[in-house]
């Protein structure tokens, strides 16, 4: 109920809702405008190959190849949302499982999981992301015997691989304190087994923590994808992505400001909205974090 009173969080929710609609409606926008996402429009570039700015039919102008920026932004929303949500989902799944086991079991398993998480967190993540993406993306077959193909899946896997430790550490910490609570002892004293305690007693108490951190991880992962795409390591060029579009703009941004401005604003607002949502959820679900 505190959440309902949080005007910024509610506004963010509305924005995210509109964004989802935009992502779903991308083909519709392409149909209505008559501009496919990868369709090149000769008349939108000048004799020097520079794109033309916004006009009546190209509201956000065109990019260096003469493609419609608006349509590509709508398709780009799909990439950002899919990567943000799916990668976070995978990371949360891994993180919660490992965090729960580490915190509940303790001992060697805990040391192993915690130290692995520490190492992953201290790795320069972009570096390894670059390594994996180039390794798996340098040929058509991908890597691991072709199971991992370059493209969206690879990006999601890489991001999930580097963001689970945040979740695992937080869940582990929460489990450590929950484990000491008397209701866990009470459950054990009536004969409950480890699985019952982990899933019936502890896990329900983690739900709000998980929701809050998942909602804060989504914007981080959206940004992560944008960074990868900006460095030319994300999704292939044929799939429109906001980071990639800004990267394309970086050579000609002084003459084609729209190319940099519009994808950037969408990226910024999306990340901002998820961050506001996360802050709002934290305030609502965790009364102690009243700040």
């Amino acid at each position: 109920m505190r959440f309902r009173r949080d005007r910024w969080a509610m506004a963010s929710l509305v924005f995210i809702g509109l964004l989802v609609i935009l992502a779903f409606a991308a083909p519709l926008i392409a149909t209505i405008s008559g501009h496919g996402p990868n369709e090149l429009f000769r008349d939108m570039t000048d004799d020097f190959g520079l794109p033309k700015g916004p006009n009546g039919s190209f509201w956000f102008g065109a990019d260096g190849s003469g493609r419609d920026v608006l349509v590509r932004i709508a398709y780009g929303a799909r990439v950002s949302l899919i990567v943000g949500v799916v990668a976070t989902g995978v990371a949360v799944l891994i993180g919660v499982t490992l965090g729960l086991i580490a915190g509940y079991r303790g001992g060697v398993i805990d040391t192993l999981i915690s130290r692995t998480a520490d190492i992953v967190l201290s790795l320069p993540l972009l570096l390894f992301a670059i390594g994996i993406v180039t390794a798996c993306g340098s040929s058509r077959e991908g890597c691991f015997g072709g199971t991992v193909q370059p493209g969206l899946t690879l990006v999601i896997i890489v991001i999930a691989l580097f963001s689970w430790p945040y979740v695992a550490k937080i869940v582990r910490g929460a489990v450590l304190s929950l484990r000491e609570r008397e209701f866990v002892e009470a459950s054990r004293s009536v004969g409950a087994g480890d699985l019952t305690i982990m899933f019936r007693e502890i896990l329900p108490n983690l739900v709000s923590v998980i929701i809050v951190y998942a909602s804060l991880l989504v914007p981080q992962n959206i940004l992560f994808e944008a960074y990868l795409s900006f460095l030319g390591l994300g999704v292939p060029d044929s799939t429109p992505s906001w980071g990639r579009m800004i990267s394309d703009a970086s050579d000609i941004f002084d003459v084609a400001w729209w190319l940099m401005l519009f994808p950037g604003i969408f990226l910024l607002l999306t990340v901002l909205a998820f961050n506001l949502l996360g802050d709002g959820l934290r305030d609502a679900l965790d009364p102690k974090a009243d700040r």
Partner: protein
Amino acid sequence: MGRYIIRRLLWTVLVVVLVTLLTFVIFFVMPKGDPALRFAGKSPTPELIQEVKESLGLDKSVPEQYGLFLERLVTGDEYGWPGLGKSFQTKQAVKPELVQRAQVTITLIIGGALLWLAIGIPVGVISALRRGSALDRISMGTALFFVSAPVFWLGLLSLYVFWKKLGWLPGTGYVSFGSDPGAWFSHMILPWMVLALLFAAIYARVVRGNMIDVMTEDYIRTARAKGLSERRIVLKHELRTGITPVITLLAIDLGVLVGGTIVTETVFNLQGLGNWLLVAAQNNDLPVTLAVTVLVAIAVSLFSLIADILYAILDPRVRYQ
């Protein structure tokens, strides 16, 4: 304490070994195709490929190569100690270029860090003290903005405004301090600012949260009951506990940033470690990638050790454990 430091250094060694092993796996085992092919020119003959393989040490098995790499790292090679080999791409020794590029990156990080501390801590403290005020809401809103804004986009935007439109700044690239201090500064100011704004935003949020937690501590009530002035309570009692955790945060960030300013360096065309790494990784230039990775792993571990020692000095509760 001494034993503790030794144990931590051993841990660092372990981390470096693990990280390099991971790097080897990622760059050698995972990709399909022969890396030697890339360096054998446009029309590779089997003989040429074999020659390239031998010259790069790629004719040996991967475990052997890794063993050799570790051995050279410890004992040194023809370019001195530590043995980092030569670049596949340029055939030049890695070490001198590593040193040169590290200077650029370190300049970027230190300047940025000074800026973000100078902005982030005061903003966090003042926001906490004036909690709920317009000032607090504006600064936290701004902080959220900079946390959310992609660094490369902010970088391009600032270049567009200050370089292209206003013409206040001379453009991108790195000028060494020795050759022209003024140009050095004017080339670095934007990268510093852009890097600092993101971290200043994070730090302001953290400091504010810490301070608000501290304010409700019993010992702050005690300080008030003693009749201390508000000024003293804030400066001596709240700030001490509110800021101490920032040390850990800073150390971790500084360590990770040694290899993590890739995006900033790319936007501002700075020939630092990140930029080098990006190119090397894309070109399968393994010695360069490994050298940077080793440096980053060491930096991360050492900085976190320094943080823990500093923390123990600042917080007596930790010291006596």
